[in-house]
């Protein structure tokens, strides 16, 4: 004969929910308040630059080859010492990523020999037109830092002959 227990069980359930009312809400008020993304978060792509402002991308199109969704389009042109965009022979004159096709797998990052393309922390990628889904190079490339100068640069001959620099092991 259980008379009190069933009622107590119901009351315990009610007590649990009532107690939760005085809990701190976990809500993050999104547009005003943003949660920092994790260190390895794969957001929108960023094309990196060297310290002096030269682009890391050499237009090899290995990222386009690695892309399982065929989202990347690269067209390369020749660098000259008068008009230098990146070290080495060639640079990407066109670099487009279709954000509707991209699956943010990060294979492009892995394929890149110069660590030029990196999946960043930007995740607000809304657009209102299908044509706006194609992000051209000037949207993807990182702004020039204060001690660098914008591309194309005029450089002294024989200085930037190697397109793939000596790299240390990637950290994180």
């Amino acid at each position, binding site marked *: 004969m259980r008379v009190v227990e069933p*009622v107590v069980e119901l009351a315990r*359930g*009610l007590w649990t929910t009532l107690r939760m009312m005085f809990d701190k809400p976990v809500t993050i008020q999104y547009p005003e308040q943003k949660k920092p993304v994790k260190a390895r978060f794969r957001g929108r792509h960023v094309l990196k630059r060297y310290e002096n402002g030269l682009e890391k991308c050499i237009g090899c199109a290995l990222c386009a080859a690695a892309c399982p969704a065929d989202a990347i389009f690269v067209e390369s042109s020749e660098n000259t010492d008068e008009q230098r965009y990146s070290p080495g022979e060639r640079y990407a004159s066109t670099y487009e990523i279709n954000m509707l096709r991209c699956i943010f797998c990060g294979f492009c990052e892995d394929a890149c020999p110069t660590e030029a393309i990196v999946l960043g922390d930007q995740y607000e990628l809304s657009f209102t037109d299908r044509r706006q889904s194609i992000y051209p190079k000037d949207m993807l490339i990182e702004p020039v830092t204060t001690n660098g100068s914008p591309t194309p640069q005029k450089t002294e001959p024989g200085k930037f002959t190697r397109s793939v620099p000596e790299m240390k092991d990637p950290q994180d």
Partner: protein
Amino acid sequence: MNFLLVLEWLIKGFVWALVLLGGFAYLTLYERKALARIQSRVGPNRAGPWGILQPIADAVKLIFKEELTPAKADKLIFTLAPVIAVVPAVVITSVVPWGPSFNIFGYHLNLYIADINVGVLYIMSIASIAVYGIVLAGWSSNNKYAMMGGLRSSAQMISYEIALGLSFVSAILLAGSMRMLDIVTAQGGYWFHFIPKWFVVLQPVGTAIFLIATLAEVNRAPFDMPEAEQELTAGYHTEYSGMKFALLFMAEYTKMIAISAIGATIFFGGYNGPFVDRFPWLGPVYIFIKIILLLFGMIWVRATFPRIRYDRLMAFGWKVLLPLSLALVFITAVGIILAQHFENSRLLVVIPLASLLVAGVAVALIDRTLRRKDYARR
């Protein structure tokens, strides 16, 4: 019948209708906020400060939505059903007094719309009409889910109406009248100067049955079978959109307010409270607070208990609540006769004690049934 009386009725009816409509709008916000807090969220807070304009945003959205009528629906009934659902929900509370009558500018003002000598009977009959709105909405949609939802709700509401009515009977017996005003006056005053003479004290089990039956009557969780999403998509209002859906939604929430007002009046002392005889304006305040608390109870139960199975719902209604409420009517009658026979009102204490005993037996029996192996397996 003079002009002033007609004007008074018009104004009171208009005010009460507006209170119900505004109450419906803000009940949705209240529910969303309370549910959110229970689930560690903050709830709607974008439209206006603390989200207080959210109901207006919802209303505007619903008004401008496209209204669809299924091609093979019964057009007339499909349009009429939401109206049939709303009207009883609005008119049902007209008999609820929301304050003592007082004189204002030399005019005697009664704070109720209608004073019917069979007020409780009126409530029961109007509550029954509310079933039509739902079952017709389900039937006229020409959709199997809607049909099942409508059938479920009609079966459920008819079953629980009996327990609801019988729980009213004990209050009627205690008050000796079916007039709502008499029921409220019978609950005025105190025992031993601190226990209010509310019927919830005299008939706690009857109040519990009323609260359970009202949850089933207004199709609220855990008895929201007619709208069980997992089984019936949205039940009887699957095919409704736009303003017609808003009307069905309004019927549901207005019924919640109405049933809370009725419960507050019949079992929780109505507008009675401290100092209400000296300051009559406290009456509406007290009944408002009681309605808010009862509504919170409904939201709280929704946030806590999962939906129960349909066959168990019907079994609970017919095999537990009906016999139990019949026993309570019997116990109440015996208690009143004992008190009258020995001319000692203290003998009324028999009623709560015997009721609790019977309720204990009922709980033990339910528990034994649920533990029985062949029942649990089914």
